[in-house]
């Protein structure tokens, strides 16, 4: 295999075999799948590996090599089975294949008539988990034949669509929270971030994108050995064995193994060193039930043999993610005792909006999406008068006015298309927005804190010796040559102009090093 770059970081323009792709059905229904050229598991369809969705079947063959963003039509697939199968039926399947395709098709028909129909009825329009099975047949794989209906879109993975499609093993951190957290923790290319617990890996993927500053081995900038890039890394910890294993596998499959290092560990017990090595982290995200138990390991210098997991020459930014206020209080109390500063707690309220056209009125009769109440007082009056008129006719000659009712189903496809194309209903009505029916009202409280770099008396003495402090006495100003003063004044004017209207406060004319040097030069020449 060529160098494994992650489709999260370098998606390329087309979907590639052996890499992750997102099969998009609709916004909240996306299926992650690793594209396979052949059905290595040898267990299903004549077309090779297939993604089955309720919008159709999609052989991987029809996905590989396609541009990201392509709309992909469903294929007619040829198989003997649908749905999850155990080992035994998989074996039986192989035997069936050997017996000939006719048998297979028959079996297919039988098995499909049941489950999907049930699913549809149960669902009533609301999205339901879809059973995905990447099953297929090797041996002789045949070409895919397009079905008459159904399609998906093929998307490159991003932390956002991964977060909304990943297999949930725990609660996960969603986009609004992780975006803000990574921003506040100042996680930028080259950063080292500690993350516990890894859980389902939602935060892990977002962090990997944020710290990424090249793959190991690409530190040199333009081949120059002196200008080296610091590569970023996510130091992730998870004490649950299966979760750790699953995530490790995903990280490898996603081409992120040089960027994420997952350690199977209870951090409250055993701290953060990995093979005795310090992550030298400058950012920390704790998403575990008792963050205050992890904090005592996240300190700077302590008596040997303790090695700090923190970067000794950087400010460390920390965020804990806890659903309950009691956890926050306990955490904060320990933070204060351990010397963290700028301790602050926030919660993020996030909303998505539904945007649609509201059509109200009687005149169109019963129509899809139309509320059959009067649009105005005038319309109400008109209807009332109509009723009055009908009454009169009935009283006077005893005949009922026959209701003019259109018995055809207003919601058949032809009618809908007609409404759309001819009547342009998409332009009718009032354009409105409102919050989506379901709102995540509370995810967790985000507690932020900062641990400044340690600054000892020796450090202070060293810097003082290098850059002495010139005390200004009484009224005398710091000596400045007339040229330096002119230059400083000009610079101040220039700076003012640049800052335009956003007035910024420069305490005193800025005397840069160059200026003093310049004045020296002049004196000498």
């Amino acid at each position, binding site marked *: 295999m060529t*160098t494994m770059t992650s489709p999260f970081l*370098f998606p390329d323009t087309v979907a590639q075999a052996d890499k992750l792709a997102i099969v*998009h059905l*609709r*916004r909240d229904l996306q299926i992650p799948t690793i594209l396979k050229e052949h059905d290595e598991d040898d267990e299903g369809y004549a077309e090779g590996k297939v993604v089955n969705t309720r*919008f*159709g079947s999609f052989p991987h063959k029809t996905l590989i090599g396609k541009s*990201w*963003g*392509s709309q992909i039509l469903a294929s007619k697939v040829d198989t003997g089975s649908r749905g999850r199968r155990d080992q035994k039926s998989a074996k039986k399947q192989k035997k069936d294949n050997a017996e000939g395709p006719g048998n297979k098709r028959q079996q297919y028909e039988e098995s*499909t008539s049941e489950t*999907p129909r049930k699913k549809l009825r149960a669902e009533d*329009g609301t999205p339901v988990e879809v059973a995905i099975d990447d099953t297929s047949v090797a041996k002789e794989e045949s070409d895919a034949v397009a*079905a008459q*209906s*159904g*399609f998906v*879109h093929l*998307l490159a993975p991003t932390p956002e669509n991964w977060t909304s499609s990943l297999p949930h093993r725990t609660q996960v951190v969603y*986009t609004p929270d992780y975006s*803000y957290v*990574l*921003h506040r923790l*100042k996680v*930028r290319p*080259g950063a080292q971030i500690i993350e516990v617990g890894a859980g389902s890996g939602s935060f892990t993927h977002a962090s990997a994108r944020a710290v990424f500053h*090249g793959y190991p081995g*690409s530190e040199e900038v333009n081949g120059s050995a002196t200008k080296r890039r610091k590569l970023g890394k996510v130091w992730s910890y998870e004490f649950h064995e299966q979760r750790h294993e699953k995530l490790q596998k995903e990280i490898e499959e996603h081409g992120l193994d040089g960027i994420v290092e997952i350690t199977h560990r209870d951090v409250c017990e055993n701290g953060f060193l990995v093979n005795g090595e310090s992550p030298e982290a400058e950012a920390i995200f704790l998403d575990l039930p008792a963050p205050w138990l992890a904090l005592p390991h996240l300190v700077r210098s302590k008596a040997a043999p303790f090695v700090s997991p923190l970067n000794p020459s950087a*400010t460390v930014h920390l965020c804990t993610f806890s659903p309950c206020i009691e956890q926050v*209080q306990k955490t*904060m109390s320990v933070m*204060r005792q351990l010397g963290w500063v700028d301790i602050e707690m926030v*919660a993020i*309220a*996030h909303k*998505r*909006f539904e945007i649609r056209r509201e059509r109200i009125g009687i005149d169109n009769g019963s129509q*899809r999406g139309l*509320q059959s109440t009067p649009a105005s007082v005038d319309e109400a009056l008109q209807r009332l008068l109509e009723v009055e008129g009908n009454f009169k006719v009935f009283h006077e000659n005893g005949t009922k006015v026959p209701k003019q009712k259109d018995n055809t189903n207003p*919601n058949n*496809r032809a009618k809908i298309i007609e409404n759309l194309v001819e009547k*342009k209903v*998409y*332009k009718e009505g009032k354009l409105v*927005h409102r919050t989506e029916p379901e709102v995540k009202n509370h995810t967790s409280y985000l507690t932020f804190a900062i641990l400044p770099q340690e600054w000892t008396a020796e450090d202070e003495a060293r*810097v003082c010796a290098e*850059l002495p402090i010139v005390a200004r*006495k*009484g009224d005398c100003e710091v000596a400045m040559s007339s040229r330096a003063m002119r230059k400083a004044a000009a610079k101040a004017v220039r*700076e003012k102009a*640049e800052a*335009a209207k*956003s007035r*910024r*406060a420069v*305490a*005193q004319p800025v*005397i*840069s*090093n160059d200026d003093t040097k310049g004045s020296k030069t002049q004196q000498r020449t």
Partner: protein
Amino acid sequence: MDNLVTPGSWVVLRLPSDQTKVLQIAKTNTISLGKIGTFASNRLLFRPYNLTYELLDRKGGDKDSDLRIVPASELHEDILVEEAAALLPENAGPSEIVAGDGVEFQLLGENGEVIMRSNRETIDDSARQTLTMEEIETLKKEGTSAGKDLIAKLMLSHTGLEEKTSFSLAKYKLLKTKKYLKRFTVLPLDVAMLTQRMVEQKDASKVLEIREEMLSLIGSWSNIHFSADPIPKARSGRWLVVDETGGLLVAAMAERMGILHQGYTPPEPKRSPQEEAGEELKDLKIFKELDDDINHTTDIQLATSNTLTMVHTNAQPNLSLLSYFNYHPNSPTDRSSREHPLAQRLHTLSWLQLVSPSQDTTYANPPSPLTSEELQSMKSGKRGTYYRKQRRYRKIKQIVDTTHAGGFDGLAVAASMDPISILRHLVPLLRGGASIAVYSSTIESLVKLADLYSTSRRTAFIQSPPAELQGLSSEETARWQGNEDFPLNPTLLLNVSVQSARVNEWQVLPGRTHPLMTARGGAEGYLLTGVRVFPAEGKVEARGKFLKRKGGREYSCWTTDSGAEGQEREVAYEME
């Protein structure tokens, strides 16, 4: 970003009032905090960020104060003491409070003498007298004694400290501490800080009232990250940006791409006398011109990956906020700007250069090349102008041509301009699967935009494409300029949706935890997101009937009665 405060960098000093002061720090300079006092810049240089200092009383004859680093235990002392007190039995008076962890809680008298330490010592009677408002004012004006002194006086003035409940005591102290202490904290100026400052203290409308949480969401949803391609010359990691926030959005994106902060390069240590002489020579006019000539002939190599391409409204881009990161895009000869990572990676072009380059003077009029003899005979000033023109032309030609070639990985917009007109020109330039994020301070323009991608409009478009599209290639269809019914081609974006996020700050104190009572009003801020897609060639046959949802809501999926394989199946027409 540097971990230490370095000369030339912009820093933020946060005062106890939560007001901030921004300044570019230089060596051997004086920094003034107004009434609080002044101190030498060298006191901060080459020290870590995020330290809190206290201005000490000036020594006799000195103009400036010396500084003292305030340790964290002292910053938190009120709460630490209070928490310790809370562990004591109900009616134990403060006289029994002993702070844990070696923290000493002390109130200082006028001359810095300790009135009370860990609440065990008796209160000085002289401090017990009640202060009048005038006295407080004079104390403030004098500003000679440390703020703590004043607090001690204020606290002790009303009643004896022991009579106060811990509730009112803490509140009282918190208020007063904030007001009077002569402390400040040194913070780095990064995008987060700049955003906060612009929104809370400066003119928020200049940055479209964009809050940090929205800025970070734009970054995620446009999928911006470091992306210098390992394969040289490959074009990847290119983002389009429309920024009417004076450069704040560009800065935020650049920070995520690792190209905003330059890092401090210390001056060469110990130069030989020859080198010193060389420096001097540089100042001479003739050498300066020579230098300029060189500057003008060597083009800045524009990068092909990990780049930002900004389309701007005026002839010159408004990126004034980038000056806080020492990048001045409109003065191309400025040495620090030339060496800034943005010089290679931030490409700017105007809407005219994008939409109709032949009408742009720079692009349409390449300077005619001169022979070396002609150049030799020119005055150096004229020669300089010639080189500058050449360079400018080559640069804009390269930018315009690569932009037209398209294939961008994402688009981020924060503008007050109509987003429909922006998307009309920029969506065709995105690669398939590219993410877009459009910010607006108010929702109305995004509602209109989202409506152009509604399921019903898209369905109508697919069922009966506008006549003028007949016979056009898919490439041409993507660049179609729209008509009245379909101002934008509704099949080019998937998943169009609008969201908003808001951070609510809490106060967390022992027994007094609640969301802050007040917060900033103004624009909420909204984000429209979507993904660039390619519709399948030909008519995508969708069969079935609409499901009707409760409340007459339009439902966006079709169901089929008879699938190809006799199977009932839904056909996605995506989300509303």
